[in-house]
């Protein structure tokens, strides 16, 4: 129950804040990116944290969603809502396909396959003239109602999406689905022999994860009024998703939120004070640090401390 109250508050803030004209536009501009990473990290964690299958392909799914949205917009003048649904469907299908191909094998093959998908997707988009090829495509934003600016509206959309994504992740985590995923992460062989349909669960997690990432990618072309392969299939999405989930904590739905917000703010601070490259390096180092020293992530550590205090 507490969760839904919290979610409701966030939702109100997410929609209410952009409606208030006093707040600086930049807040929403930067906030949109942070929320995007919240969704990406949460989505990544469904397969990566709960099931234990590392996915290096967020750019592929994110990009698939973005390009699907572009196609829908260009071809059918589809409204944003339809774009998002379409993007989720396409990315989900991609997730299912990649999963079908490689989830029968060990985790590392899946991981490598996801790297492959990123490259292949990027190459495909570079060569597809309809969506602009290598040079990219300019997009004209349709007029916006209710909100003062398109960016504000996108922020609100992303806020809703974040809440939805987290709600889905949370449901999976606490339900029998989550238990099955955890079982297969702990020992896939034992899980199979205790009746857990491991392949089906893995495919499920992969598809949902991919679909959410695609949904996160859909508003991106409108956000930038532009789309092109190089920045869409960028490594930073991989690092952001993995980093957010690992640093925040992989076993709990709160983890990716904490991680994404932390990385997002860190990114803004470091980029402004030192340099853009340095920021990226810092994230990388943090990632390795947490992987090595604190695999439970921030949320995990927090829970551990709580338990220790109780005793």
């Amino acid at each position, binding site marked *: 129950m507490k969760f839904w109250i919290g979610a409701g508050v966030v939702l109100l803030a997410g929609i209410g804040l952009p409606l208030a004209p006093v707040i600086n536009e930049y807040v929403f501009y930067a906030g949109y990116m942070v929320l995007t990473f919240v969704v990406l990290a949460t989505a990544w964690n469904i397969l*990566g944290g709960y099931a*234990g*299958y*590392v996915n*290096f392909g967020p750019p592929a799914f994110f990009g698939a969603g973005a390009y699907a949205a572009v196609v829908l917009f260009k071809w059918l003048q589809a409204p944003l809502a339809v774009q998002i649904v379409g993007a989720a469907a396409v990315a989900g299908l991609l997730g299912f396909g990649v999963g079908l*191909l*490689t989830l029968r*094998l060990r*985790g*590392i*093959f899946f*991981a*490598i*396959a996801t*790297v*492959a*998908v990123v*490259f*292949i997707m990027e*190459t*495909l988009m*570079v*060569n597809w003239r309809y969506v602009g090829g*290598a040079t990219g495509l300019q997009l004209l934003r349709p007029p916006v109602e209710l909100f003062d600016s398109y960016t504000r509206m996108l922020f609100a959309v992303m806020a809703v999406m974040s809440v939805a994504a987290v709600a889905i992740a949370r449901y999976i985590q606490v339900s029998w689905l989550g238990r099955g995923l955890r079982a297969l*992460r*702990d*020992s896939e062989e034992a899980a199979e022999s205790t009746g857990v349909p491991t392949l089906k669960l893995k495919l499920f997690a992969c598809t949902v994860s991919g679909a959410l990432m695609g949904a996160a990618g859909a508003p991106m072309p409108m956000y930038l009024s532009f789309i092109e392969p190089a920045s869409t299939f960028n*490594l930073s999405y991989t*690092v952001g998703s*993995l980093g957010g989930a*690992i640093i925040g904590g*992989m076993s709990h739905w709160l983890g990716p939120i904490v991680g994404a917000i932390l990385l997002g703010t860190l990114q803004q601070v470091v980029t402004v004070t030192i340099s853009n*490259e*340095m920021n*990226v*390096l810092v994230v*990388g*180092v943090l*990632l*390795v640090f947490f*992987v*090595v020293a604190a*695999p439970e992530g921030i949320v995990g550590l927090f829970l551990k401390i709580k338990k220790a205090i109780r005793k």
Partner: protein
Amino acid sequence: MLGCFYAAVSIGLSVSFGLLDVPHVAHPAIMVLGSYFTWVLGTYGWDPLAAGLALMVPFFLLGVLIYRFYHAVFESRGSDAGVRGLAFFFGLAFIIEVGLILVFGVDQRSVEAAYIGKSFALGEYRIPMRMVVAFGVALLLTFSLTLYLSKTFTGRAIKAVAQDEPALRLMGANPVRIKQWAFGIATGVSALAGAMLIIVSPVEPAIDRLYIGRTFCVVVLAGLGSMTGTLAAGLILGIAESIVLMQFGASWAPAVAFSILLIVLGIRPQGLFGR
């Protein structure tokens, strides 16, 4: 020609991933690191091939260090190790790539040597000299490694550790030290591969991601742990890429390795020569 080069580049991975089962996605990144060190030595007047050979020793030590760290932190722990090990190597590759960007910038670098820039005619074809050098080195590397693994004691121990660790322990050999040694060799080899990389074409920091595709494609296609298979697979990849390059143009070429990889994973994950 290109194929042999790819084979040489992938041999190190064949050992570390194929035989040792380490999720070493940072292998190409280390190779690129080798390329850059070669370049640095090049500015001091070193011949790139000599530089590559010289770098093998420090890289060997680097490999040993990395493995010891990896083993201590990950291999001795429990179920989560798979995810974390993979994430660790990814983070490592990422740090190397960004570090290189910070130090050297994003531009491409290349080296000068007596045999670069020249080519010699073989009937109708003109073959760039540097490719021949790479080809020769690659063949040499493959043969010596294959011989090493089958003839020497440590070599065979490495192969054994891949198949049956407890048995090896019973024979009195320490599996951790052997794996360490093997990983060191793999890393040392990638130093040489890095030198060859920069001989063959200009290098930039982001290139390691492309090579992840190529090296893993070769290793998977070959079948884990097969050295000669690596050579064959490298050749296949090289030929496939060249064909695509000629027929469809440069924008499609990067996808070849990855596509082959996906196809192989889907149809025949043991590869051509795998166990």
